[in-house]
């Protein structure tokens, strides 16, 4: 703790750090709230700038962009029901209905507060448990990663209330679309039909943005919808009462733990943890039927987890030199540029720098919180723009973002393809979120399943010999059984009711 406090003067005595934190957080929020642009793109674009900066200012800029970018996704997720980043997909489930009811102010406030708490939670875990978590992350193997990914996939059931079958079909569509491109391990292409642009599969961001933004635009083209302004809003002070805040703390704690844990596992990241935390929160809730109608519990789960994930992803980076996602891969590049090599010895040899990094993250999260809170009035002005103008403008920004990911028109076609797919599927009441779950988790599950089986010489029972894998596999079986039994009981009850009627 004393080392952490001693690190603050290093930031506060340099005026350049003030400017970089402010610029980094603001630009990060802008990139986060524009669908298609992510924290990863913002960091990649600013990496050349950091070449000319000393190490502390360069990390100040990069980490501020990271924290601002993840937090900024909540703004568009709530106001226009289009997640700004994959990390805020679950925020749309509750934020959208709340904005429709005129509670955009409250939804934004709650999300911003719990985003901040999530970031603090992640940083606290990072500060006090990094060495232990680093050893834990190192002890996990392919079998464990597979079991966690499989468990996350089964949480799809929590996201499909109307029809479990339709939700599972949607998840299947996502899994199949994720197979397009190079197969994990052997790298041979699958289902590309000679289109070389598909060799690396569909890019994740254009796919996600197309599925939500394009579908929203096409549905918004309805006569009844297009002329509407988005729902007007009411101010509610800071948006949450003291009692509500206290009642949400256990939910935030569970979601923060999920976010940090998922962040530690390389390759899974914030795109999954917000959906996983939402699913778990719903399963543990006393009123799961209210989820999706616009309650703050879902917002708390999503926003706490995706921000807590930031701290989690830094654990394998700092202790093992393993980047968990694109952003930490770029941060690893920034370390290397400055002549540092994160790894097992890095933590002991550069303890001062590590605590300065923690301090930068803390200050950046406070600044992001303040910018967002002050900016709520400005963000909600978006609600005054009529839909017939807002949605096409947002689509143009989505196209800029999709093109910017790899600078190729093919990604813009990807956006259109996924948008049409989403639009068609909504006509048949197929939920879209399980598609994203399947699409993100499919390659991870396949990769670790194949690696695990190769290590176990095709013996699946060997997965149960690994402690973490065994726990998650048992949880998976329990979850599937409980869901199945609940559905059957509900079916029997409804048919009885019909007969009685």
């Amino acid at each position: 703790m004393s080392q952490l406090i001693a690190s603050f003067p290093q930031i506060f005595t340099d005026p350049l750090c003030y400017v970089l934190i402010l610029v980094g957080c603001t630009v990060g929020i802008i990139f986060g709230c524009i669908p298609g642009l992510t924290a990863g793109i913002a960091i990649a674009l600013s990496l050349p700038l950091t070449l000319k900066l000393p190490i502390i200012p360069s990390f100040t800029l990069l980490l501020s962009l990271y924290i601002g970018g993840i937090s900024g996704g909540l703004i568009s997720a709530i106001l226009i029901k289009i997640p700004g980043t994959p990390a805020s997909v679950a925020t749309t489930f509750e934020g959208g209905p709340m904005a429709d009811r005129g509670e955009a102010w409250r939804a934004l406030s709650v999300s911003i507060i719990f985003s901040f708490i999530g970031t603090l939670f992640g940083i606290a875990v990072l500060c006090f448990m990094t060495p232990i978590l680093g050893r834990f992350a190192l002890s996990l193997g392919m079998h464990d990663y597979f079991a966690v990914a499989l468990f996350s996939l089964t949480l799809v059931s929590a996201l499909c209330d109307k029809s479990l079958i339709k939700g599972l079909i949607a998840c299947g569509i996502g899994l199949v679309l994720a197979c397009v491109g190079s197969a994990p391990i052997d790298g041979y292409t699958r289902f590309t039909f000679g289109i070389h642009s598909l060799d690396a599969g569909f890019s994740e961001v254009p796919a996600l943005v197309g599925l939500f933004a394009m579908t929203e635009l096409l549905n918004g083209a309805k006569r009844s919808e297009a002329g509407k302004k988005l729902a007007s809003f009411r101010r509610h002070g800071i948006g949450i009462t003291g009692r509500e805040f206290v009642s949400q703390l256990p939910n935030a704690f569970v979601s923060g733990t999920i976010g940090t844990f998922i962040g530690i596992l390389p390759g899974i990241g914030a795109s999954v943890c917000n959906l996983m935390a939402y699913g778990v929160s719903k399963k543990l809730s006393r009123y799961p039927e209210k989820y999706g109608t616009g309650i703050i519990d879902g917002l708390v789960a999503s926003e706490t987890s995706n921000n807590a994930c930031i701290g989690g992803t830094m654990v394998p980076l700092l202790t093992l030199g393993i980047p968990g996602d694109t952003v930490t891969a770029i941060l690893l590049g920034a370390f290397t540029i400055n002549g540092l090599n994160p790894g097992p010895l890095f933590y002991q040899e550069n303890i001062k720098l590590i605590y300065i990094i923690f301090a930068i993250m803390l200050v950046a999260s406070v600044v992001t919180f303040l910018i967002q809170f002050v900016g709520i009035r400005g963000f909600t002005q978006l609600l005054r723009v009529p839909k017939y103008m807002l949605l096409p403008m947002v689509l143009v920004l989505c196209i800029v973002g999709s093109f910017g990911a790899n600078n190729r028109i093919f990604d813009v076609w990807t956006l259109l393809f996924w948008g049409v797919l989403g639009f068609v599927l909504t006509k048949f009441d197929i939920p879209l979120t399980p598609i994203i779950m399947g699409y993100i988790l499919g390659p991870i599950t396949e990769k670790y399943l194949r690696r695990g089986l190769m290590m176990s010489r095709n013996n699946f029972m060997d997965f149960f010999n690994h402690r973490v894998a065994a726990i998650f596999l048992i949880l998976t079986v329990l979850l599937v059984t409980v869901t199945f039994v609940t559905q059957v009981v509900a079916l029997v009850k409804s048919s009885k009711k019909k007969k009685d009627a």
Partner: protein
Amino acid sequence: MKNRSFSDFVRRYKEAAFALVMLVLFSLVIYFTKDIRLLVINTTVTARFWPTVCGIAGCILSGILFVQSVIEGVTLARREESGEIEKPELGERFFEGDRFRSLATLLLTFLYIAGLKTFGFLLMTVLYLFCVFIMLAEKENRKVWKLLLIDVVFTILVYLLFRYVFKMILPLGTIW
């Protein structure tokens, strides 16, 4: 009358039709796995394994949805014909309705993306936004000059912000 019975049929069995299409698509996934080359041959879990599992699972689920939807459709038809429940009103004609507006928006978006490579970001965005604004705005909001001004200002702002502030590359056309 013919129209009415056709729309009733579509309404009752559209989910069954969807399930059938999904059944065919998932079957095709299984069929096309044979084209996947195999590098690791001394293991049962090859590059074909996962798509095959997904395809089979998809087929089973689509089959279940098909049977469920047909049963629901038949039950609904019986109850509607016997007068137990009322048939819903017929929807509006295609060219006056929401489906036409959605499809026209989709077509405009398709043309916009197709034109980006030739005409570039600036020109295509101005054209696209203007057309979509005009099409989606209600008659009383269709003020051409106002919409054009908003369109041009927005496009230039986006261009300047991303091109010169964020230093991002935007689609360049071969003509402009």
